[in-house]
């Protein structure tokens, strides 16, 4: 999908949050749930492409972690992993309650220690 705009949002979010320390950031970890429609390879390539435009990203490393979909069953009060997009608990109960899987967020930022 819109990988370049995701990368731009990563950069602007980091700048907003870490202001003066932006240039000390060495690595950013992104968590993308399986429902976010984010493809790690495409994100990495978009990042490489944008790096050519924005020298400030030259030294930055990006890692994308894909999170599986976890849903909650209200009958057995247990969480279970949703595979093949079947939102049905092993006990047979359908559910809509997504605990994890639709997130698109920065989860970890590493800096040079000063």
């Amino acid at each position: 999908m819109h990988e370049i705009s995701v990368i731009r949002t990563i950069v602007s979010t980091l700048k907003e949050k870490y202001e003066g320390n932006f240039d000390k950031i060495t690595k950013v970890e992104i968590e993308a749930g399986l429902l976010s429609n984010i493809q790690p390879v495409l994100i990495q390539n978009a990042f490489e492409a944008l790096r050519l435009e924005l020298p400030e990203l030259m030294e930055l490393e990006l890692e994308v972690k894909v999170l599986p979909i976890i849903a909650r069953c209200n009958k057995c009060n247990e969480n279970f992993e949703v595979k093949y997009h079947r939102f049905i608990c092993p006990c047979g109960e359908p559910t809509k309650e997504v605990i994890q899987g639709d997130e698109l967020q920065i989860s970890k930022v590493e800096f040079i220690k000063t």
Partner: protein
Amino acid sequence: MSDLRTPKSNRMPAGSVQCDNTTLNLLKANDFVAKAIKDKLPNLLVVNVCSSPGSGKTTLMQETGKLLRDRLNIAVLVGDPETDRDAVRMKEVGINALQIVTGGMCHIEAQMILQALDHIDLTDTDLLFIENVGNLVCPAAFDLGEDYRVTLIASTEGDDKPKKYPRMFLTSELMLVSKSDLLPYVPFSIEAVTKDAREVNPTLEVITISSLKGEGLDRWCDWLIEKVEEKKAKNQVAQE
């Protein structure tokens, strides 16, 4: 050029890296604007209409506008990567419409809706449709401040879409199976599509329609009227 690059983190000896575990939502800006849209439109129902290209969104909007002409004031914000053809089609049948040209973008973002609201007169409007860009992937991730998301799936596009594009069907409240007049001619099973869609979203409502022949449009219109009334009643309670 990028081959020569060595990331700083690789050059640093162990122990010299400081780590910040955090949660910074990358869709925060969109969700913030979506909330602002919701707050701005407390008394009219907003329905985000999604589908693949060519599933019959615009034809459905036209027919809905004609059928509900005497009962609801309807406006449409219609998104397309290029051209204002769909807004012209709405206006031809007397619907208050504004085209959002996304400039090649594959989805509408909340910011585009917020800006469009300054250019359309919504006085006395009961129901605002947002006709999204034809695409079952990207629009699913963008909240536009809508009350309900409705996804069309045409009988001609195959009954395997809900499993291929799960997030869209997961985040919709209603699925409209469109072009039902063509069902006798295509290998499309309403049972199969409903079963797959409900494995993704067990509370999904399903209505089968044909905009051209009129089948199911009464149920669709009843659904809309019910939701408009619910929204108005809720707003009235909030004001008291």
